[in-house]
């Protein structure tokens, strides 16, 4: 039985939600006070995701680097590997907000896109 304590971040109540299950399906979930909190805790248990925002090397830009982020949240466990891929990437002109620098990073369906120009 795999249990996980989740502090919900949806609102200032910061409910402590307890989730129990086999790691893939949830058998018990307690401590939430609203629907959004329950949903957040469920996601945190089954497939926690995080958005990733960082910088990539840029050539032909006003700074040596340019800011980027994932256009969708990434699986939490892929963040470190994603950073490795981002470290090797180089953004080149033209620079526009939303331009993908890395498409479908680590086969997650998530792009890393420019957030500045």
């Amino acid at each position, binding site marked *: 039985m795999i249990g996980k304590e989740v*502090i919900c*971040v949806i609102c*200032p*109540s*910061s409910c402590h939600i307890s989730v129990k299950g086999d790691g893939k399906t949830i058998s018990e979930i307690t401590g939430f006070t609203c629907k959004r909190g329950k949903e957040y805790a469920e996601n945190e248990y089954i497939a926690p995701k*995080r*958005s*990733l*925002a*960082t*910088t990539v*090397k840029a050539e032909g830009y*006003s*700074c*040596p*680097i340019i*800011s*980027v*982020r994932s256009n969708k949240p990434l699986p*939490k466990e892929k*963040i470190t590997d994603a*950073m490795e891929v981002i470290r090797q990437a180089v953004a080149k002109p033209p620079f526009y*907000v939303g331009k993908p620098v890395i498409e479908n990073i680590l086969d997650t369906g998530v792009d890393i896109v420019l*957030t*500045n*120009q």
Partner: protein
Amino acid sequence: MSNSEYKYDVAVIGAGPAGLAAALAAKKEGAEKVVLIERDFRPGGILEQCVHTGFGLKYFGEELSGPEYAYRFIKKCEDKRIEMMLNTMALNIDGANRVIHAVNQNGAVQIKAGAIVLSMGCRERTRAQIVIPGSRPAGIYTAGTAQRFCNVQNHIVGREIVIVGSGDIGMIMARRMTLEGAKVKAVVEVMPYLAGLTRNRVQCLDDFGIPLYLSHTVVNIEGKRRVNRVTVAKVDEGRQPIKGTEFDIDCDTVLLSVGLIPENEVSKSAGVELDPVTKGPLVDQNMMTRTPGIFACGNVVHVNDLVDNVSTESEIAGDSAAKFAKGTLKGADNEISVKPGTLVRYMVPRFIEAGGVERETKMYFRVTEPAKNVTIEAKNGEETLYHSRKKFVNPGEIEHIQIAADQLNRLKGGDIVVNVIKDEEAR
């Protein structure tokens, strides 16, 4: 005299989120010639180095990174032909004549304006101001400076880091540095509660196993040339270190996230009256300071949590500035103070001109301590102008109330006092 003299209807100092929103609002309200005076090489202010997301949920309904949020406004400014003087540093203001004295690589410039908007933002509190004893080696930075080094100049300031203060900037940098391969060994917070958002604690500290020490402080920094360790101690209720609780953490970097201070040297030069609590200008419901024709908005007035709120507040400033420049800003001679009452640290705006209020007025404040189940009320004498209940309030999050224009315009005298009352005290 140099011949670099410029005339504008509205001149805005600082092209960060506050200035950008104010300039756009001024243009929208009919100001023809609007200029943004910006010291950096590009507009966007502090947002340009805030590569993380969390901006725009309220204003745009989207979760954006700092530069993206700024870009939305920058693009609009370009479309509306709002001028930008980049690499231009405003040095002082002749408040009576509304002339800004600035310099850039072309020379000394004077910018005469019908109305001026101050939106210079804030600076970070330093190690010296919180008096951490010890040596003064390399490796001690405020979190924002480390952020600039990393996100604009592409340098990592250190390898093993201790962060002082659980402000959002510190927590954000904890994550940023960890993702870049540095080891963040601890976040040390002197209060018994988190200074920033819980969301950041979860996603920046807990996610990476970075320990958070509440009710602790750094009592010594060691290292001759470069930091090599800090000493941390628990503190008592008076926030004084408790002897015998000290422990050392080896590190080569100390990042400070211990508060922001509105940057008002230029405002002082204009003779603008400052609130001794916030260190920002005293403003009315139009975001006008006590110096006619000089408006202020954003972090230069009071440190905000959400850039979204900065944008809406700045739109009021810009709109009012444009009106002032045209001569259509409704004045009034009935100044009513807005005073912080129980559990309230400060109020913005700090006064209203009864008779001249044109819109429902939001009044912002921070509480002095965290509290649960409180009543928030605003009274003028016996009359209640606002009343509501709230489950949680804490100093880390700005609160606000709103009062309708006609209610404010009917006030004859006295003060508006805003109180936050705990249930136990209400009896």
